């Protein structure tokens, strides 16, 4: 920890020590900038929804070479399942890779526990020279003549001045709204994630998920879990615990009157899930918002004296197949850090210079990916994909595999029958296939 300069004027104040904030602080502090990183939790990660899959290993490797050797990681991911479920059946697509892209450094992805990981990542920012202030809530930005000149924290005499404020305060960013960059999000633009971490012995995890050593797996569920509310569920293996949760669109929670916790209970009780959880003990429980509409709801990212990164900028990709937010948070944080360095070099923190940030987001692949997947959120939350197709798939497989002495049927007639029974229309199916292709294939 380096003591801040007595002036209490900083080159950069970063709000929020999540993946975005710490990445921005690392980049800026390494260039010698005087950086203050403010976190409301008792420590970075204390307030974050624990347990996640981190898909940015190669990218982080560029910032911190060999990061997985020092960071608290749980398991590297070599198995992924996508599962369509109806109340009584589950149809899954199982992917497993032993290729070096997945199973050798720098690996493809890891499961991590956020309280541990975020704490470690923020410590890297401290090591780079940033000053970390915890248990301190930022209440808003200080504006003078239309320019952001600092932040106000919820403590007596809590004004901090800075050339640049980087808002990395997570989904539904109060700071971005306050600076006039972002409107309040609508309920259909936000999802609510409720998550639990359940303790389970390592041996049981290996056996149940067919893993050895440090191999890990993620399972994503689509279908009846969310009981008419739009969303999905996931289950990740950690070293000696499981992270699982349900994500549901806030507007559909309102419409259906479902309480998020009920959905989680439903999911845990599902016959395809319950056996995986046997004997597991609840360790923690939390809930958090996720910005889900990607490209379409991107706020303005730059104001004079301020940048927005990570979830605060909506950089969370929820394609229905998985949620990727941590990697984009880091990438955008790094881009913001670089923009800060450039602005500092020319000593100009007006909007015009800071616009450089949006240019940097392209080489960091943030914009590229969000544009590519821009149709996915809408598609995934469509009614038919959410409820109808999983049921259809389940029903047809259920019929296909059932041996009850009746004459066997071929697959296509089975599907057509399942489709008729569930009320799906062929023209919808074709339209949806097209949309799926547009969302994911090209």
């Amino acid at each position, binding site marked *: *920890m380096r*003591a*801040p300069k*007595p002036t*209490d004027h900083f080159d950069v104040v970063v709000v929020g020590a999540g993946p975005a904030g710490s990445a921005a602080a690392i980049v800026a502090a390494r260039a010698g900038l005087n950086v203050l990183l403010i976190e409301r939790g*008792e*420590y970075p990660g*204390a307030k974050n929804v624990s347990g996640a899959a981190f898909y940015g290993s190669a990218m982080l490797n560029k910032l911190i070479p060999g990061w997985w050797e020092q960071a*608290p990681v749980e398991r590297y991911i070599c198995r992924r399942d996508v599962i369509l479920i109806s109340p009584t059946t589950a149809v899954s697509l199982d992917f497993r890779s032993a290729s070096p892209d997945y199973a050798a450094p720098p690996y493809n992805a890891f499961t991590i*526990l956020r*309280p*541990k990981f975020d*704490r470690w990542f923020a410590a890297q920012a401290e090591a780079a020279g940033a*000053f970390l*202030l915890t248990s*301190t809530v930022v209440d808003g930005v200080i504006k003078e003549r239309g320019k952001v000149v600092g932040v106000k*924290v919820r*403590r*007596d*005499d*809590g*004004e*901090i001045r800075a050339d640049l404020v980087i808002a990395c305060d997570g989904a539904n960013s109060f700071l971005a709204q306050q600076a006039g960059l972002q409107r309040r999000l609508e309920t259909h633009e936000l999802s609510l994630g409720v998550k639990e971490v359940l*303790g389970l*012995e390592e041996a049981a995890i290996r056996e149940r998920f067919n893993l050895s050593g440090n191999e890990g797996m993620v399972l994503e569920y689509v279908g009846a879990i969310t009981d008419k509310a739009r969303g999905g569920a996931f289950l990740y293996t950690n070293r*000696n615990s499981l992270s699982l949760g349900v994500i549901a669109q806030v507007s559909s929670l309102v419409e259906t009157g479902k309480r998020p916790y009920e959905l989680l209970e439903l999911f845990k009780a599902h016959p395809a899930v319950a056996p995986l959880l046997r004997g597991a*003990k609840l*360790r923690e429980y939390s809930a958090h918002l996720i910005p889900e509409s990607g490209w379409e709801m991107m706020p303005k990212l730059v104001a004079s004296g301020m940048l927005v990164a990570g979830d605060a900028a909506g950089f969370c990709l929820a394609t229905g197949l998985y949620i990727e937010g941590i990697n984009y948070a880091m990438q955008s944080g790094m881009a913001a850090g670089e923009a800060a360095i450039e602005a500092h070099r020319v000593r100009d923190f007006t909007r015009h210079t800071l616009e450089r940030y949006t240019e940097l987001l392209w080489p960091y692949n943030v914009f590229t990916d969000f544009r590519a997947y821009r149709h996915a959120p809408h598609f995934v939350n469509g009614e038919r994909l959410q409820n109808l197709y999983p049921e259809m798939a389940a029903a047809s497989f259920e019929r296909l595999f059932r041996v009850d002495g009746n004459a066997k049927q071929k697959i296509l007639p089975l599907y057509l029958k399942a489709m008729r029974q569930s009320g799906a229309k062929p023209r919808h199916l074709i339209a949806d296939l097209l949309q799926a292709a547009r969302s994911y294939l090209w």
Partner: protein
Amino acid sequence: MRLAVCLSLVPDPATIDVDPLTGEIDADRTLYIMDPADAAALELALRLRGEGDTVIALTVGPAAAEPVLREALAAGADGALRLWDESRSATKPAVTSLLLATALRNEGLPDLVFCGWRSLARGSGKIPALLGEYLDWPVVTDIARLEIQAARVHFHRRLARGDRSEGEVTMPAVLAIAADGVRLRYASLPQLMQACRTAIPMRDLPDLGLSPLDLSFPASTVHAVTPPRPRPRTIFIPDSSLSPHERIGQILSAGAAPKSNTVLEGSPDEVADAIIAFLQARGFLEQPA
């Protein structure tokens, strides 16, 4: 008046995750905090501090324990001192108290020493009395409230099951605080930044004029640390509504026998009577004469 407060940095029990097999604490997940009882003690000391008074915070611990002193400085303590014997990884209560007592003597004895009633770590609850012994001062434990009246402290003390006693003690004294509702004040931003910048002085054995021999105490060995297993409770007076045979069964099973479960239904009047009769049978209400 000079006040000293003994602080310890402890794992927040809410974040302690014990491996059910080894009994080990998962250190990565654990959040270390100022012991809540110590925080209450510090807050009471700060509230007592008048014009010209000082509050000094002390802790026995490695450099990793410094945050507890910074937090005290941020909250308004006038000084902080860390004590440690670099040759150890942990200290026993007797060693902790001896280091504290020696340092207090060396730095000039205060009028009152505040402690928490029991720390949330290994929690011996012995340190206040040991400190009193080494300083040869009186000790009052489990103080819920206090007031200074001339050269003595008037106190309310917490007893078991909610009983309280009131009393007084002469100064100087060691006071162990158990004030549940008292929270440490929230530091202002400048104080917090200032506290983060301050270098915290440290005293080791040579500084304190102690030799390792002074710190040798009778050995006891912690042989196993396990997650808690409840001890079966001895039951108090078997249920008098049971037959003698059932009562003996209840005594023999040490309370492990399933409870008798009665579920009843009726008019409000009837069920109110039933509840009252039940309370009387169990001795919660006096029996009618």
